[in-house]
C-alpha cells in the first residue's frame, strides 16, 4: 500500500487499489536543513514496488535532495529510509546523474563504463562481457560501445549512464533530471528508451523531473512536493497502458492528469 504522512493535505486518490502490495521503500521522519533553511521536516513516504514515480515540485523544493538522501549521496539530519526493512548498504541500486558528461569515465570505452560496477563487485572479465552483451540485447541498444563517451552524442552518453546503472540488476533505480541537458528531439527519444527499460525490467524507479509533461508521461505516480519544508501535496496516479506513445499525450486521461498536477503545482508556487 501507499501510506502517506499525516501531514498530507489532500488524501490521494486511487490508493486503495494497491493496498495488497507492501511498500518497497519506507521513509520515516526525514529531516534535512541547508544552513538555516529546513528542506525536510519529519517527511514520511512509502514507495510502491515496481512502479515508476516522477518527483515534481517547485524550484528548490528539494526534489533532487530527496532522491539523493534515499540513495545515500546526502546524509539526512534525521530520519530513516528502509528498503523492505533493510538499510541502503544491503540494497543494489542504480543512480543516473543529470550531468552524464561528468558522470561517465572518459578514459574508459562506453562498454567498460557499463561494465565498471561489475568490476567493482569483483566479477570476472568474461562474465562482465557476457552480462553487458546480454543487457545490450535485452534493451535493444544500438550504440557502438567500443567508442569513448566523448565520441557519443549526449543522448547516447546518457543511455550508457542508464545501462551502467542497470548492469548490477538494481532493485531500485534513481534518475536525477536525466534528460534536462538534452535537446527536445533527443529527450523524446530517451523517454521512450527509459520506458522500454522500465517495461523490460520493472525496476522500482524514482525520476526527478522539471518537466510536467515528461513526469506524467513516464510515471505510474507523480509525486507532487510542496515548497520547502517539503510535504507530499499529492501522489497522483497515472495508469495509461504502456507502451505510451505520442498519442498518449493527447488522450483525455493524460490531459486531465497533467491539468490536475499543474493546478496543484501552481497553487504551491503561489503560496511561496
Amino acid at each position: 500500500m501507499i501510506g502517506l504522512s499525516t501531514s498530507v493535505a489532500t488524501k490521494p486518490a486511487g490508493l486503495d487499489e494497491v493496498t495488497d502490495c507492501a511498500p518497497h521503500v519506507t521513509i520515516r521522519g526525514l529531516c534535512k536543513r541547508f544552513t538555516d533553511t529546513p528542506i525536510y521536516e519529519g517527511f514520511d513516504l512509502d514507495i510502491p514496488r515496481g512502479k515508476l514515480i516522477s518527483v515534481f515540485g517547485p524550484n528548490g523544493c528539494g526534489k533532487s535532495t530527496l532522491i539523493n538522501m534515499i540513495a545515500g549521496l546526502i546524509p539526512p539530519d534525521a530520519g530513516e529510509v528502509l528498503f523492505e526493512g533493510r538499510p541502503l548498504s544491503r540494497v543494489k541500486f542504480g543512480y543516473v546523474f543529470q550531468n552524464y558528461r561528468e558522470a561517465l569515465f572518459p578514459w574508459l570505452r562506453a562498454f567498460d563504463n557499463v561494465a565498471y560496477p561489475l568490476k567493482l563487485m569483483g566479477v570476472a572479465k568474461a562474465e562482465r562481457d557476457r552480462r553487458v552483451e546480454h543487457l545490450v540485447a535485452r534493451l535493444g541498444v544500438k550504440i557502438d560501445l567500443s567508442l569513448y563517451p566523448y565520441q557519443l552524442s549526449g543522448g547516447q552518453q546518457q543511455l550508457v549512464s542508464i545501462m551502467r546503472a542497470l548492469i548490477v540488476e538494481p532493485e531500485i533505480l534513481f534518475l536525477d533530471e536525466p534528460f534536462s541537458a538534452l535537446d527536445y528531439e533527443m529527450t523524446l527519444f530517451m523517454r521512450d528508451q527509459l520506458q522500454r527499460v522500465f517495461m523490460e525490467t520493472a525496476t522500482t524507479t524514482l525520476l526527478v523531473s522539471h518537466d510536467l509533461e515528461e513526469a506524467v508521461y513516464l510515471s505510474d505516480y507523480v509525486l507532487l512536493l510542496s515548497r520547502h519544508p517539503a510535504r507530499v501535496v499529492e501522489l497522483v496516479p497515472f495508469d495509461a497502458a504502456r507502451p505510451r506513445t505520442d498519442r498518449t499525450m493527447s488522450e483525455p486521461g493524460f490531459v486531465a492528469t497533467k491539468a490536475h498536477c499543474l493546478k496543484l503545482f501552481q497553487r504551491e508556487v503561489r503560496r511561496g
Partner: protein
Amino acid sequence: MTRSNAFLPLVGVAILLAVWSLVSWLSLIDPVLLPSPEATFRTLWYGMIGGKLGADFVKTVVRTISSTAIAAVIAIPLGILLGSSEKLYRSVEFLIDFFRSTPASAMFPLFLVLFGVGDRTKISVATFGAALVILFNVAYGVMNARKTRLLAAKVMGASRTRVLFDVMLKESLPQTFVGLRNGVSLALVIIVVAEMFIGSTDGLGMRVFEAQQLFDMPGMYAAIFAAGALGYSLNLLFLVIERRFVHWAGR
C-alpha cells in the same frame, strides 16, 4: 586544416630568414656580431654531426631528462598524496608556493655546497625546480577531480582506494601532463644556466658561453639554435605522449 594552411607556420620562418639574409648581405650589422644564416646553419650542421656541439647537446638532453624523470618520480606520488586531502595540501601550500616562486638559480650556491661541482649539483637544482612545478600541478589535478565523477564511483560502491586509483588518478592526468611539460621546460632552463658556470666542461650552456668568450659567433648562434630546438622538441614530445595517454583531455 586545408593543405595551404598547413604551410602557414613556415611563413614566419621564411620572413625571419629573409630579413636576416638581407641584413647580413647589406652588412647592416657588423658580421662579427651577426653572421650570415648560411654560416650559422653550416656551423650548426657540422657541429651537430660529429662535432663538439652534438656531444654537448646529448649531455644537456641527458641532464634535462634525468632531472625531469627524478622530479616526476618524487613529485607525482607526493602530489597525489597531498591532493587527495585538501587539508594536507592547504597546510603545505604556502611552502610549495614559496619555493616554487624562488628562482631556482638562487639555490646554486647551496646545492654546490651540498653536492660539489659536477652533474649532481646541476641535476639536483633542476630536479628541485621541476619537482615543485609537477607537484603543484598534480595536487591541483587531484583536488579538482570532478565531484560528480567521484560521487558516481562512490555511488557504485567504490572504496576510497578504488576512487583514488580509478578516478582521481585518471582525473589528474591532464593536469599532471601540464606539470610535466612546464617541469621539463624549467629543467632545461636551469640545466643550461648551470652549464654556463661553476666549472662546467660540457653541455649546451657551456658551448654558448665558450663560443661567446672565443668570439665564435656562428658557433654561439648555432648552440643557441640547438638549445631552442631541444626545448621545442621536448615540449612536442610531451604533447605527443599526452595525446596518446590522455586522449580524453579537453573533450
